[in-house]
């Protein structure tokens, strides 16, 4: 479906010439904002894209924003990866601690068992060691020196 082209007609002046004395505004007119008289297009053509871009943010802003956003994403991802890695590291360390604690416990048990006097005595007896039948404490003749 098509519509007939609209015919452009010069717009009628909305205000009186500036050199003429301005009549006192009616209460209704007073409420209206006063518009700048000149530099206004007389046609209702749509605004060009160039003018719109000029009104938006500066390209440096976009570049900066892109850097910031990219930096934040990279930072968050890196931090997340770091946290995960640290978590794995903690898990590994905890597992190692548990392993070493177990090992320590076993070694403690072994030391206690091996140093048990009963075991040592049996071991020694099996190899022919005997307890001395009569222990004599030797006395050195003379009076011992006493400090103080």
């Amino acid at each position, binding site marked *: 479906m098509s519509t007939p082209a609209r015919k452009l007609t010069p717009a009628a002046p909305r205000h009186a010439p500036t050199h003429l004395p301005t009549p006192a505004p009616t209460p209704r007119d007073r409420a209206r904002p006063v518009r700048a008289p000149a530099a206004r297009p007389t046609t209702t053509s749509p605004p060009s894209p160039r003018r719109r871009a000029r009104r938006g943010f500066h390209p440096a802003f976009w570049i900066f924003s892109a850097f910031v956003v990219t930096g934040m994403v990279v930072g968050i991802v890196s931090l997340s990866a770091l946290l995960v890695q640290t978590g794995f590291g903690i898990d590994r360390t905890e597992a190692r601690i548990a392993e070493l604690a177990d090992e320590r*416990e076993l070694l*403690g*048990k072994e030391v*206690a068992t091996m140093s048990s*006097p*009963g075991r040592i005595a049996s071991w020694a007896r099996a190899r022919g060691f005997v307890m001395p039948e009569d222990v004599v*404490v030797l006395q050195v003749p003379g009076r011992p020196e006493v400090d103080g």
Partner: protein
Amino acid sequence: MRSPSRGRLLILLTVMLMALVGVVARVSMLQVRQTSAYVELGWEQRVRTVTIAAERGSILDRAGTALAMSLDARDVYADPRYVTQPSDVADRIAEVLGLDRPAERDLRGDLRADGSFVYVARRVDREVADELAEARLPGIGFLPASARYYPAAGVASQLLGFTNVDGLGIAGLEKQYESLLAGTPGERTSELSPLGQVIAGGLDVVEEPVPGNDLVLTIDREIQFQAQQYLRRAVRDNDASGGTIIVMDPRTGDIYAMASYPWFDPNRFGDFDAATYRNRSVSDMWEPGSVNKVITAAAAIETGAVGLSDVFTVPDEREVGGFTIHDSHPHPTMAMTLADIIAKSSNIGSSLVADRVGDEQMAASFAAFGFGRPTGVGFPGEQSGIMPPLANWTDATRATLSFGSGVAVTPLQMASVYATVANGGTWVQPRLVLGTRGRDGMVRLADPSMTQEVVSPRTAEALTQMLAYAVEDGTGGSAQIPGYQVAGKTGTAKKLEDGEYVRRYVASFIGFLPASAPRVVVAAILDEPATIYGGVAAAPLFQDVARYTIQRLGIESAPSVPLPRDALLLP
């Protein structure tokens, strides 16, 4: 098609509305009135709290060597609903755990039983449990547990005691210091799915358990071991039924060794007679016999009732209160000083001394030395001994008490009497615990033992001379150690059974050394030895133990104390 009548529609609508109202009412009831009950029910269904056992503290000797320790272990259980082939599973478990045939048969029955939980084995070594876990047997599970291990086996077993299968101390120091050793169990509260798995992100609160403290004993493991070896040998050599040995420091009350034969291995205490669990040093009483004469002598000297050079005319038997008492050996009437009475161990002489002291002073002396009350050593089941009340004393009571008959004491009470003399007349409460060690590894020493002056230092010195005389020229000759002056006393006492004295004896020797600067007291007691005399049966045991202790503690010799003059040499 005919449309339903308006009336039927109204009825249907009414019924539906009523049903809706009913549902709303019920929902309101559940959501509003019974909210808390259902919330609690739901909570109970999905939240489980599991107790996390605290690691039990170790028991250490005075050098920090472990006498009892806890090891990581596993309880093995079965859920019979999931055991598909009970026979095969039982075979495999029996093979790994080393079960005998009857135990394996029982296990087979357990695996076929109704129910969802049955223990297969408890306190299994972790390595063994790991081996069983690798077999991936259906329906078999494992629970964390802790097993008590006594690396020195029978060494100080009666002191240490043992724990039950739940890790609770039920005998000895394990029982006495349960709260200190056990620690505080923790808890884990988790939200579980219907399959029993922890819901990720759900409630999961862990309250960590607080491990128990270590207990540091005054016991020296090496002295304890050697004392037990000598005790066993003495019991066998003398064909005795048992024996007791105590080694202690008279200055601090520290007990270096304490044992009774026969003993047991706490790692498998179930294999031993329950009588071997008893620490007879504190739980059994005996009539001390002549070792008690030191108290009579102490009362005589302290009260001034008898002078050191007073001479008694001592026959070998005497009538007192309608009873005849006599010395252990017949002898002609002799002149004896107090020192001679102690050295020759004369019952008659001792009764004559007691006559001079009097009932009240004798009773006071016994009480001052701690008779009739426990020493407070801190061991469960310590006995007070039996002391007849003063109101019931007769002349015969006084006479028999003077030589250790008619009174019952524990070996520790008697050792404590000699420790008091050795310590210059001041009683020091015996103790078994040196301190505790926390998880930080710091040892916190216990307060020093209580002390109380029982007799004056002068009296203690006179007694020491008499006891040294008893070893050098009296009945205790077998206790002599070359290079060291020993002070001590022999004892031979008849046993009392069902109120009657029987011809079975307890032989004892209690002494200390070096006499002038005592470092150690040793009490050696043999029950029913073939050779009944303390000087023959028990004194050599004292000698062996004391000699080893000298080496172990590096005790130096000290100048000898002068011996009391023999009555025969008196002017």
